[in-house]
């Protein structure tokens, strides 16, 4: 099973490396969001560190949504999804491989967006980086675990680009609220014991939703 998940992931990675369809759009959009906030928060330079967690996650989520929109749109071209569905294997494998690919693309975009945010907002965060990586990692897994399932649902509709954010954002709200809170704790208080609650909520949500999505995936793909 792991080999098949890896095969789906590798295929998406290979296509992305050749076309750069998703990553370019995700990076561009994320950086534009930072630029806009950089100007909008110009007058609050002294307290900008308090705004950064929210700004970062807005950029992550907007750019991540672009990537998720592409995740199944590329499978619709030439009816590739039909070819995948005909393979005699657990269809949840497609979900897991796609979620892995979406998470990796989003983490790459987040890394670049984060570096730009350090420059724009003039932040120094060396000591906090391991904690930030942990929060970004769990938050991204949760976001893509939900997003991959909803992207598979949205791709069969005519208004998929509009529909995905509409159904995705309300569902991932528990992940986003806690990711912003955890990032805020790391950047503003350094009281790492306080991370326990948001990280527990994010992890629980991710596990529950990924399990549900894995089980439901078969049903959302058929006509």
């Amino acid at each position: 099973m792991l080999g098949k998940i890896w095969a789906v992931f590798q295929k998406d990675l290979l296509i992305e490396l050749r076309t750069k369809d998703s990553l370019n759009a995700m990076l561009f959009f994320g950086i534009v969001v930072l630029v806009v906030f950089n100007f909008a928060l110009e007058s609050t330079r002294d307290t900008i560190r308090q705004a950064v967690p929210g700004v970062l996650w807005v950029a992550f989520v907007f750019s991540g949504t672009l990537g998720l929109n592409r995740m199944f749109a590329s499978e619709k071209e030439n009816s590739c999804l039909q070819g995948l569905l005909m393979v005699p294997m657990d269809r949840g494998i497609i979900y897991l491989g796609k979620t892995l690919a979406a998470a990796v693309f989003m983490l790459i975009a987040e890394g670049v967006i984060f570096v730009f945010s350090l420059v724009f907002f003039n932040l120094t965060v060396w000591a906090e980086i391991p904690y930030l990586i942990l929060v970004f990692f769990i938050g991204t897994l949760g976001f893509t675990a939900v997003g991959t399932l909803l992207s598979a649902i949205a791709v069969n509709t005519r208004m998929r680009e509009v529909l995905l954010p509409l159904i995705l954002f309300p569902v991932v709200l528990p992940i986003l609220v806690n990711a912003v809170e955890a990032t805020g704790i790391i950047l503003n208080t350094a009281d790492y014991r306080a991370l326990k609650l948001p990280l527990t909520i994010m992890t629980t949500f991710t596990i529950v939703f990924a399990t549900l999505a894995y089980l439901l995936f078969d049903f959302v793909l058929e006509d």
Partner: protein
Amino acid sequence: MIEVRGLAKYFGRFSALRDLHISVPQGQFIALFGRNGAGKTTFLRILAGLSRPSAGAVLVHSAKPGSQGAREVIGYLSHNTALYLDLTALENLRFYARLLDLPALGADLEDRIARVGLAGRAREPVRNYSRGMQQRLAIARAFLHDPGVLLLDEPFTGLDREGTEFLQNYLSESRARNKTCLMAIHDAPLGYALSDRLVVIERGVVALDLPRQSVTLDEFQGRYRALTEER
């Protein structure tokens, strides 16, 4: 063995199939004829498990369409090639071979690509292929796991003379190996030549079902024409 009883499929208020019955014994080759929109593709998609029936019972080798058991024996080829255009032919087949638990050895896959007439083009992105070349590769992809039931929806679309010959030979070989085949086709002489049984679907039901030996091609074409014209 394929068993279909009272099959219906509705898209909103439109009925693509209504009360369709057919039984296909192991090793039989069926040519499915019918006008555009008659329900051939919907029927094949339901057999392949890509679409859920609205009513009726369907069994493929005693398994429900879409189940892992049914997918193991089915090879489905439609006019959409299900190929990744940004991957090479070899990468496409290697990807499917890995999912199918087949040995994804380069030499073996290159041999399969050569057998469909694409020798020397295995490492080229599929995007550079013509429609006919893509269809040849789609044949190699769809039959990679040597399925016992072939569901073919206009499989000759885009194929040149050589490609058509290759597919005809493949189907003859499959017939000799007792495989079952349902093929939607518009070319009456070709469908007649390749099948044991001629079935016409019209407005979602089986309107004509004849053993090939019982009619000549001319008789069949006459009855098919009369049937489609009278409705």
